[in-house]
């Protein structure tokens, strides 16, 4: 101790004993202290990267031009409107250098081609991270208050979704995620308000449970609640992980409060039970194109069919015969808003079809479920469970109110502060990780979590996370002129008796008219300008095949003569395109020379036969509709206008716009209008 003190005092004397020496030493210390700031700057990380970049381009052939474009120092993209202050380009020096495309080393990679310029939008708007930071760690991995680490590449499409509310062709994952948010019923419980103020609306159709006892048994409800996927693998109903007793109590409540459907349903539907005739049933099922909307598992375990209606693999296990027959007779009595059309089956057809569907069952399914009669307290417990789990957020249930804002709102979930999130132990503390973990296994976050277990694949989870990560605070503050709104479905409703008919036939489940309806079948907004009256009458009575390669087709409804006429008149009068001028089109009677000229154009100049069939003997293309009788199907003004520019009449149609001259379009129209079908043409010749 004494020794140390002795050394210290002698060092003090040696340095500061003499005033001149002390002055020298203090000056030296001052110099060193003054040198710290420039030294820190000189050895800063970004300078290191800029030196590396210069070394990288030094040996390249275009080094001179690359060096000319290089600017030393901190770079910054400043966009006050967007709140962007990005210094990323200080180190990411080659983002715009196309000639460095072969360099794989970060931070010197070229940015892949995207539709936006870096200078116009900056970097963090899509990638996240801290734009103002100038060190690697702070820019990419900072998790301090209000800061978010950089977004993993797999969710990068969420960046597009902040401005683009519409479906872009280049963002399949985002589009799928957005569809799923609505289709899997997420928005029944979680409210999502888009930046433009519109609310996301669910597109699924959870059935009302007010009359459930008419439809199915308590045993089926119990088995379904226990494991929905065991009944139908494709269902969007999640698994609530209910105990046996809880599932039993819920089923007891649902059955006990179910009210029978008003009078005529049961009476109208009851048919003598026929022997299930498998072949007649299968062919009626096929003829009615049930599989356009309903899927059935085939022997190999693959689902075959559409996903508009529920899967029918084990429908015989579920529905009661009387209900099924009443449903087939007229589904709109049980459920006024169902997407299923009123097929107008004859009693005999109903007997055949219901027998066929009832035979679709799995004899093992729910065979060992035996439920005892429930007592009042069990039923009351069932009601409590239903209210607690939020069943009524999706389904209409007697005696339980639809809860408002049942689950947290997700409108800005992507900007949720990390401090407000309870992470699982061992989990990386980022919002994307949290969202994925929550979707994958909600109940892992605690036994009191009400969110049920969805059965989603990894890519579906990624897609959902991408759609949710687009819901940022930034998406709400961007200028309005950058926002691209989603195409909103209109609430168009055709008027009068025809409108009622179109609702009954559920035209909007497949066809879109004036901005409302499905995408499975062609848009009919201008169908009245397109088709001829006689053909439409025939088609509605018996829809024959226009596109042989299509698997999903229009079913046949047993329309009465009056209804057919009514519907045809309505379509021909109301759905007229304002852009078609009958005066411009060639007249119906064309000279044989022009027709022949059109034929030449069809086969040689425009090679339309690659996609269309005109002569069934020689032509084979079947991308577009078959044109053998187009002359008796379409009107000349429509054909002419279509040839001039197909996309104006039906945006997004596959047929390319060939920029036909007026003469060519007229000749082709004349040729096409001369094709009157097998009968018509031969009679002419």
């Amino acid at each position, binding site marked *: 101790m004494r020794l140390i003190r002795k050394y210290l005092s002698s060092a003090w004397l040696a340095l500061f004993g003499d005033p001149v020496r002390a002055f020298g030493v203090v000056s030296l210390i001052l110099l060193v202290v003054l040198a710290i700031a420039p*030294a*820190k700057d000189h*050895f*800063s*990380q970004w300078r*290191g990267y800029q030196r590396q970049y210069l070394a990288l381009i030094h040996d*390249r*052939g*275009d080094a001179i031009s690359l060096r000319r474009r290089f600017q030393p120092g901190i770079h910054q993209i400043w966009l006050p409107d967007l709140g962007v202050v990005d210094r990323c380009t200080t180190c990411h020096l080659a983002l715009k250098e196309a*000639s460095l495309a*072969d360099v*794989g080393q970060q931070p010197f*990679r070229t940015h*892949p*081609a*995207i*539709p936006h310029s870096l200078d116009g939008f900056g970097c963090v708007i899509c990638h996240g991270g801290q734009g103002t930071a100038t*060190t*690697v*760690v702070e820019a990419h991995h900072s998790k301090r208050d209000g800061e978010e680490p950089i977004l*993993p*590449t*797999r969710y*990068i499409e969420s960046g597009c979704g902040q401005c683009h509310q519409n479906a872009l*062709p*280049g963002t*399949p*994952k985002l589009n799928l995620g957005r569809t799923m948010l609505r289709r899997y019923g997420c928005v029944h419980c979680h409210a999502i308000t888009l930046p433009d103020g519109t609310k996301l609306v669910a597109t699924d159709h959870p059935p009302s449970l007010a009359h459930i006892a008419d439809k199915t048994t308590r045993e089926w409800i119990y088995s379904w609640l226990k494991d929905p996927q065991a009944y139908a693998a494709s269902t969007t109903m999640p698994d609530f992980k209910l105990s046996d007793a809880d599932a039993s109590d819920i089923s007891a409540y649902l059955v006990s409060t179910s009210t029978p459907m008003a009078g005529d349903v049961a009476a109208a539907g009851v048919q003598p039970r026929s022997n299930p005739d498998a072949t007649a049933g299968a062919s009626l099922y096929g003829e009615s194109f049930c599989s356009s909307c309903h899927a059935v598992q085939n022997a190999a375990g693959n689902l*075959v069919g559409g996903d508009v209606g529920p899967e029918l693999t084990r429908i015989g296990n579920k529905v009661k015969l009387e209900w099924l027959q009443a449903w087939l007779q007229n589904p709109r009595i049980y459920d006024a808003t169902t997407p299923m059309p009123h097929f107008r089956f004859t009693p005999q057809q109903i007997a055949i079809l219901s027998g066929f569907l009832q035979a679709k069952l799995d004899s093992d399914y729910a065979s060992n479920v035996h439920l005892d009669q429930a007592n009042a307290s069990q039923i009351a417990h069932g009601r409590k469970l239903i209210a607690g789990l939020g069943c009524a957020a999706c389904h209409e249930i007697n005696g339980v109110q639809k809860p408002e804002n049942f689950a947290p709102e997700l409108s800005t979930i992507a900007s949720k502060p990390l401090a407000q999130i309870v992470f699982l132990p061992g989990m990386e503390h980022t919002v994307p990780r949290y969202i994925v973990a929550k979707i994958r296994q909600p109940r892992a976050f605690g036994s009191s979590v009400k969110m049920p277990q969805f059965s989603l694949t*990894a*890519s579906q989870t*990624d897609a959902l996370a991408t759609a949710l990560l687009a819901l940022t605070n930034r998406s709400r503050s961007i200028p309005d002129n950058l926002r691209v709104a989603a195409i909103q479905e209109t609430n168009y409703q055709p008027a009068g008796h025809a409108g009622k008919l179109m609702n009954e036939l559920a035209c909007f489940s497949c066809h879109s008219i004036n901005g409302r309806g499905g995408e499975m079948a062609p848009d009919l907004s201008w169908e009245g300008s397109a088709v001829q009256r006689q053909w439409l009458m025939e088609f509605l009575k018996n829809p024959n095949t226009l596109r042989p*390669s299509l*698997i999903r087709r229009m079913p046949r409804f047993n329309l009465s003569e009056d209804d057919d006429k009514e519907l045809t008149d309505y379509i021909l009068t109301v759905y007229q395109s304002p852009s078609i001028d009958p005066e411009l089109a060639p007249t119906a009677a064309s000279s044989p020379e022009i027709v022949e000229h059109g034929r030449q154009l069809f086969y*040689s*100049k*425009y*090679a339309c*036969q*690659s*996609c269309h069939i005109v002569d069934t003997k020689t032509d*084979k*293309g*079947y*991308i577009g509709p078959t044109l053998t009788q187009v002359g008796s199907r379409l009107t000349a003004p429509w054909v002419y206008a279509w040839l001039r*520019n197909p*996309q104006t009449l039906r945006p997004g149609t*596959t047929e*390319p*716009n*060939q*920029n036909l001259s007026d003469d060519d379009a007229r000749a082709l129209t004349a040729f096409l209008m001369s094709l009157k079908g097998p009968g018509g043409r031969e009679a002419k010749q």
Partner: protein
Amino acid sequence: MMKQSAACIAFRSAAWLAFLALSFLAGCRRTAPTASELKATAAGTALVESSGGHQVGATGTALNDPLIVQVNDDQGTAVPGALVEFHGPAGVNFDPAAMLTDSSGQATTAVTLGAIAGRYQLSAITPGKSRPVTLEIVETALGFQERLGSSLADKHCNRCHDPESSPERVSNYDNLEVKPHPLTDGNTLNKMSDADLTSIILHGGPALNRSALMPPYGNTLSAGDVRALIAYARAVSDPPYQPAGTVYARK
């Protein structure tokens, strides 16, 4: 972890040690190697690809199908219990990265490709009896532009250009007198320049003295769409497309 990040902060003041700190940080993040924990009970002499190679996915995203490789012995029978390790360029993630083959001699891993678009050369390695055996596997990651091209190709091109039919889309390939080239046909497309491909898409087959069965898309697709389509064809072409590149005179 705590200690090391504290260490990182301490180092930051000394700027010249930043790189050291970074390497420490990288050290914190790497997960423990599992290969050393696995005890191989057998060894094979050959490694073959069962499925999962030549897939096309998106950048930073898991491939649709798992990668499955099989370890065989001299007689070509499967060897269960052999160690297989998967390796790839930076950014590629295997889940799991090392494993023992199952009872049928197969090792299955889920592959997530890196953030950079292009072809990824992956390898599977098994120690073998005398020397390690390596199997090379190629997967392709599509970036934004190529994925846009892929969806445009699905809409406008593949009905004729793709000879394979799917349940949703019947191929028109067999119906055409002059057969179109699949977009993956590198032997033909690699010889054509971007300008040639652009003009055949914009103006149709006759632009290059080819069949009129190929219609013009100049009034249907935008210039960006056409660039995306070409980028997609280049990305998936087999054999791989080698751009001619710019040739500069040396100093």
